[in-house]
């Protein structure tokens, strides 16, 4: 029987297939162990999924983040959404959009532009990208004559949580930074949503979004350029959303970086 055992345990991908990897990041040409995945590919996938899961259940390390924002001269506040924990956050998007009843913004000064930082679906993304972005963004906004004095962290927050915060602080514009849903290839993508005249009930079509902010994606310093330009335009034209498109030259800059 054993001399008939000519089929190899591990079947490598066809030779030509390896060349095709230059065209896509998809997991092509994995080879196979009989009908299954080779052990290395199976465990690579497991590691990527584990990183994404851990990112979803990560929480904001607010102390160093707030310290960094204070060094930029911002007053920093902390609130929670109405979602009590991660499980409720995942089940009840409506609660993640509202603030906890006891949330207080009373000790914060009103600000023309308010920076809101939410954990979203990946606090790890915010931990990694907030300060590299803010270090460039805040000076740029001020250089454009835009007043930004206040930043608010919101735990268990979704995008629309910026609306009641902006309204309470009489902001004309909210710039909200939030952890995006982690993928297998990147668990640390941060998104930016900009809303002019924020108030609860604002439809998403009235927001501008810049996504995939991370090392290996849209670099934080390049994202800061785009955000500063959009913020200036939103304030000048008193609008945000679908009627305010990104500056195409800056979009190209971002891609080439």
């Amino acid at each position, binding site marked *: 029987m054993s001399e008939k055992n000519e089929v190899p345990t591990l079947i490598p991908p066809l030779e*030509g297939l390896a060349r095709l990897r230059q065209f896509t*990041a*998809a*997991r092509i040409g994995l080879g196979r162990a009989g009908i299954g995945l080779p052990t290395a590919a199976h465990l690579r*996938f497991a590691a*990527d999924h584990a990183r*994404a899961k851990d990112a979803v259940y990560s929480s904001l390390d607010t102390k160093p983040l707030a310290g960094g924002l204070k060094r930029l001269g911002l007053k920093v506040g902390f609130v929670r959404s109405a979602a009590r924990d991660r499980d409720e956050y995942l089940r009840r998007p409506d609660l993640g959009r509202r603030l906890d009843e006891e949330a207080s913004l009373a000790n914060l000064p009103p600000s023309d532009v308010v920076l809101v930082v939410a954990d979203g*679906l990946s606090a790890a993304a915010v931990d990694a990208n907030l300060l590299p972005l803010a270090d460039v963004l805040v000076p740029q906004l001020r250089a454009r004559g835009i007043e930004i004095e206040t930043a608010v962290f919101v735990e268990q927050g979704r995008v629309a949580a910026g609306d009641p915060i902006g309204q309470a602080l009489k902001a004309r514009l909210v710039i909200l930074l939030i952890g995006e849903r982690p993928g297998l*290839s990147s668990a640390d993508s941060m998104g930016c949503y900009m809303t002019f005249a924020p108030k609860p009930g604002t439809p998403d079509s009235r927001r501008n979004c810049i996504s995939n902010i991370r090392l290996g994606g849209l670099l934080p310093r390049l994202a800061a350029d785009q955000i500063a330009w959009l913020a200036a335009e939103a304030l000048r034209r008193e609008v945000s959303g679908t009627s305010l498109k990104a500056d195409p030259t800056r979009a190209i800059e971002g891609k080439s970086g």
Partner: protein
Amino acid sequence: MVYRASIDGTSWSFADLKELMAKASPQRSGDELAGIAANSAMERVAAQCALADLPLARFLEEALIPYEKDEVTRLIQDSHDKTAFAPISHLTVGGFREWLLSAKATPAALTALAPGLTPEMVAATSKIMRLQDLIAVGAKTRVVTAFRDTLGLEGRLASRLQPNHPTDDSRGIAASTIDGLLMGTGDAVIGVNPVTDATEDYVRICHLLDDIRTRLDIPTQTCVLGHVTTAIQAIERGAPVDLVFQSVAGSEKANEGFGITLGLLEEARAAALALKRGTVGQNVMYFETGQGSALSADAHWGVDQVTMEARAHAVARRFSPLIVNTVVGFIGPEYLYNGKQIIRAGLEDHFCGKLLGVPMGVDVCYTNHADADQDDMDALLTLLVTAGVTFVIAVPGADDIMLNYQSLAHHDMLYIREVTGRRAAPEFEAWLDRVGLTDEQRRLRPAPDPVLFAPALAYLGEAA
């Protein structure tokens, strides 16, 4: 009308049929989010008891969404076939469950019955069934459709090859297509979800897939999963469109959110039929559905998500599709929270679709914020194939790099064929054999002749 049940001396009442249906649904996060779920485990069983006693015919009298306000309700009621319904018209929901499990419900009887069933009847029945009931009945239903190959035959399982790419890059799409074909995937369709909805991109990808298919002479069909209006424009520009795709939902308002009406779907179908591209059949439509889509569009009318999903199947049924699949784990944990809920929903969707006469497949999948993993997908795949699912979807290494979620891997197809003996569509199976990808036992050969794929690889060279 108020519905009542009494269990061990405690009485329960439900204000109307809509409330009864919602509270009888097995637990899932979407109905809880909508605020319509049962408030306790006992209330849920009480609703199931009241539902089991309900005559099926009641669903023909009490519409869950008003007839005059919703064209999906009008479609369901106006197309109901009373003659087909006659053999079971005297039964209650509970009685129908027993009839389905009995020897009376043969494959032929179920095929004849399908036009007599409404989505509300099958959704109601699913609520009082366990997984094994859903599997047992699903395994008896046959829905056979055809375009360039024949799908849904007994003992067969088809697969969609999904070669998505985050920038719709032609070479990237082609690379994933070749990878999947070498693994034996693609008899249901080779279908790309485009990133943009631009007609130029639709037409370009459509030509790309058609080129690969014709160069390799594969008896399958291709599809670009853009919006139905984009497909119509592409057809007007002469693009080689095999299947027209559209996401559909169970209410007029939810379909409005997708930018479609039943009339628009009919127009698209007529345009695709006019191309006469099918060789063994002319089923030209491909639909996707998924529990929670109506709620996420705020268009569910207070109706539970299983019922809204079955109503989406009724929309699909109207257009004689080649394939339909639920994107069961894609819509997110606020609708299906974990592996348990995703697994049950996948089997419910398959059961409801098949009973209604829809060629039902499932995208066995999950997102990273759902409490699910590869083990859950293995369980769902194995259960679905036991239930006779028409097709499933596969991507390289289970990782869709465009839509950022996990579907099945091509390897999973090899696994399930090996352990269940399910074969590919007959025309596609013959092709796999002809080009030397498979051996006499229909297993993939360790090293197929690369020369066979030279035309496709050459295409990549040209595209570069």
